[in-house]
């Protein structure tokens, strides 16, 4: 049962849900921020158009810096700007930023504790035909191990817009994970978004499992829940848009309610959302957990949907994980 309080997009379960890439929401928010706050600046590493910073660069040319293909310099210049009170957003592909420049992020952003906001574009299998070199599947793990770092994985374009805007208010560094291809629009501008507060999007009357999902896996989890409901199997779907700080309270509450959980993410199982949820539950209320995610392999070229099927990230894979986890309850 869809949670009415969440004001989700009613077309989501129709034949033709609205589709949009999360990177578009980021680009829209950046322009809004440019108008609202003169301290906001943007930098890119030769990826102005595809990282959706072009509109900002045209409207605020004096606050935009092109650093060329140099991701280490990209983040470290931003750290210097932030030390001086600016609020920089830096854009590149997630494999390079935060992939290539991780140590600079650790030292000059996180340990320095300054508000540099990192947009990791083209994350996950959604990058498609570019292949494994450009499909970041490790970025959540890289970012969530860092003190003074907040990690957002928005589920759709609208949530990406809200998360981007929220990033200017956080203390320390921020990371937002974004996708290249269009994905279903789940939320509306009325859907609540509070950093660090998970959203319960679906809750059946007598749920037997809770599915914690992030990013592009949230819509798949909802589709799985809808099919399960039709099969007479109740579930809960929770959108963990903030991986760090994670909403332990909601996770524990629903683990107690359903006694088993499934996590779903377009990321390596090692170190991602599933690991973060397991860390919370192992310490507070251990229950059986199944992980839907990338199983210690690299991606490859292909269409996003083909890749999701091949790598076990489809709706049917979530449903299978649900069936497997419920029988593990002692």
């Amino acid at each position: 049962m869809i949670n009415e309080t969440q004001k989700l997009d009613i077309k989501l379960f129709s034949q033709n849900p609205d589709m949009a890439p999360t990177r578009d929401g980021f680009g829209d928010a950046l322009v809004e921020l440019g108008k609202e706050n003169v301290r906001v600046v943007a930098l890119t590493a030769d990826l102005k158009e595809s990282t959706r910073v072009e509109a900002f660069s045209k409207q605020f040319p004096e606050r935009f810096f092109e650093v060329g293909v140099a991701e280490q310099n990209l983040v470290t210049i931003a750290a210097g700007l932030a030390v001086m009170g600016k609020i920089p957003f830096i854009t590149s592909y997630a494999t390079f930023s935060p992939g290539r420049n991780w140590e600079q992020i650790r030292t000059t952003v996180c340990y320095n504790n300054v508000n540099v906001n990192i947009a990791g574009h083209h994350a996950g299998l959604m990058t498609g035909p570019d292949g494994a070199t450009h499909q970041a599947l490790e970025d959540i793990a890289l970012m969530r191990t860092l003190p003074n770092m907040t990690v957002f994985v928005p589920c759709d374009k609208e949530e990406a817009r809200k998360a981007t805007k929220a990033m200017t208010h956080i203390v320390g560094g921020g990371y937002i994970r974004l996708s290249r291809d269009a994905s279903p629009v789940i939320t509306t501008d009325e859907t609540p978004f509070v950093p660090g507060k998970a959203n319960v999007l679906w809750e059946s009357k007598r749920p037997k499992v809770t599915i914690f999902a992030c990013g592009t896996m949230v819509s798949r989890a909802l589709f799985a829940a809808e099919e399960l409901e039709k099969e007479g199997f109740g579930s809960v779907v929770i959108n963990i848009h903030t991986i760090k700080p994670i909403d332990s309270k909601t996770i524990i509450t629903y683990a107690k309610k359903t006694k088993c959980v499934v996590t779903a993410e377009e990321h390596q199982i090692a170190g991602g959302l599933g690991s973060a949820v397991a860390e919370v539950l192992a310490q507070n209320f251990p229950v059986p957990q199944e992980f839907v995610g990338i199983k210690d392999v690299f991606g490859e070229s292909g269409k996003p949907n083909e890749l999701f099927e091949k790598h076990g990230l489809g709706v049917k894979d979530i449903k299978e994980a649900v069936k497997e986890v419920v029988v593990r309850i002692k």
Partner: protein
Amino acid sequence: MERLTEKKLAHLYANANRIRELIIESLLHAGSGHSAGPLGMADIFSSLYFHILNHNPKNALWDERDRVVLSNGHICPVQYATLALAGYFPIKELLTLRKIDSRLQGHPHRNSVPGIETTSGPLGSGLSQSIGMALALSLDKKKNRVYCMMSDGEHQEGNTWEAVMFAGKTKLSNLTAIIDRNNIQIDGFTEDTMPLEPFRKKYEAFGWNVIDVDGHNIEEFVYSVLEAQAVYEKPTAILAHTIPGKGVTFMERNYLWHGKAPNKEEAERAIKEIRSLGNKISHE
């Protein structure tokens, strides 16, 4: 910057030697740390904090201050000693260097102690941070300057050259890089480890103004900074040729002292030599 009189010059040399003493004392108490680099940069740090910089030790976050970034963060004992001597914090606190709960971390950390502008140490990232600061000052139409202290060895880092390229492109004339050209790094001489020459030509090729100076000739160094301030169309790199371990004969030019602290006996010998150095200060 006020005029550099003979009297002021003598004062700057005397402070440099006092800074050297404080470096040795703090390293002795710490039991670890780098000796050669800090000693080699004492003359330059004295010149900066007691003559060149616009700053206020009693109000470290004064908005109109110039910024100093220590890209080669491992030589922080010289910056700590200079800051303490200038009055940013008590001199006795230097003896807490590298110890638990100390404000004087092994590498500089932003706001840990007054006068440290940003976190640095992992080589190659100071120039990029300095660029960010210089860009912010330009955006805010401020006249303050940014001085980035760098080592020669860190020019083996790719990140350094990304920054050099960017500063050349953006003609950041409010940025001055002061490079400690002391020819040593942990594994040996720079030209054996990974050659950096022709150093000057590399910077010139990236669109910088370059000035070679004797890093122990304070007058020459001060004039090089004045020249950097007068060049409006380019950033300036001051290649300061220094002697690692300067002032302590048994440490001078010996790369084995790059990453080592003196023991008690060595520290006593070092301080004795510093106190009787040249004829510029009175003997002990």
